[in-house]
């Protein structure tokens, strides 16, 4: 009988994912699901107006029309992101631990 070779697949941490949130028509695009610490979000302003993607504490990206900026999610929890110029623009990000 040949030797059985058993290979155990060791669990390894999922690679950090990268998401894009588009800003258009005075609104943030939908929050990605299953965000984890270490994931990055690219905020892209496809609107005709200057906007910010601001989370206090956290990050504050000031984006002219056409500009984009990237943030890495460092902490678990719920992040409320607003545009400082148009505070009714908001999106909530739920970030899970790694």
């Amino acid at each position: 009988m040949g030797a059985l070779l058993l290979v155990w697949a060791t669990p390894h941490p999922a690679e950090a994912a990268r998401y894009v949130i588009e800003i258009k028509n005075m609104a943030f695009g939908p929050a990605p699901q299953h965000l984890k610490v270490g994931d990055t979000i690219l905020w892209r302003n496809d609107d005709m107006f200057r906007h910010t993607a601001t989370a206090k504490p956290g990050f504050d990206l000031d984006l002219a029309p056409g500009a984009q900026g990237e943030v890495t999610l460092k902490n678990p929890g719920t992040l409320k992101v607003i545009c400082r110029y148009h505070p009714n623009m908001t999106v909530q990000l739920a970030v899970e631990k790694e």
Partner: protein
Amino acid sequence: MLTRLTFAALLLMPAAALAQAQKPNDAQIAHIAYTAGVLDVTAGKQALEKSTNPDVKAFASEMVRDHQAVNEKALALVKKLNVTPQDNPTSQALTKAAAAKVAELGKLSGAAFDRAYVENEVAYHKTVNGALKDTLIPNAQNAELKSLLQTGLSLFTAHQQHAEHLSMSLAK
């Protein structure tokens, strides 16, 4: 149903023009929307000159920047559609009222100016929002114009909220 904006304009109009004003055509709608933006840019520039309050200046910068952005799109659209914006009693009434307000605000300074400027911005945005919802958007024939007006409404609504928050904080 007449909005306050249309009502104000009607007071200044001869009877012959009355019937027409209730259903503006696209050329008139474009003129009204563009004028509303230009007037807010002018008011914002006055505030940038006169105010020393950083929150008021930030708000005024936003007015100037955002209205210039949407007006740029409006100009590009009318050029593409080969429409010449048509002056009309509503635009004239808005312009006249805005000029009077600039003169009135010109006599104020400091916190008094700030409060008066922001209060007027709240009232102005409420009026224009009403006109967009009740008259300009429903009567717009061209789909692209209608879409741009809807963007204008989202913008004016955000501006109104910002002005209201600012007004509350200045009242303290």
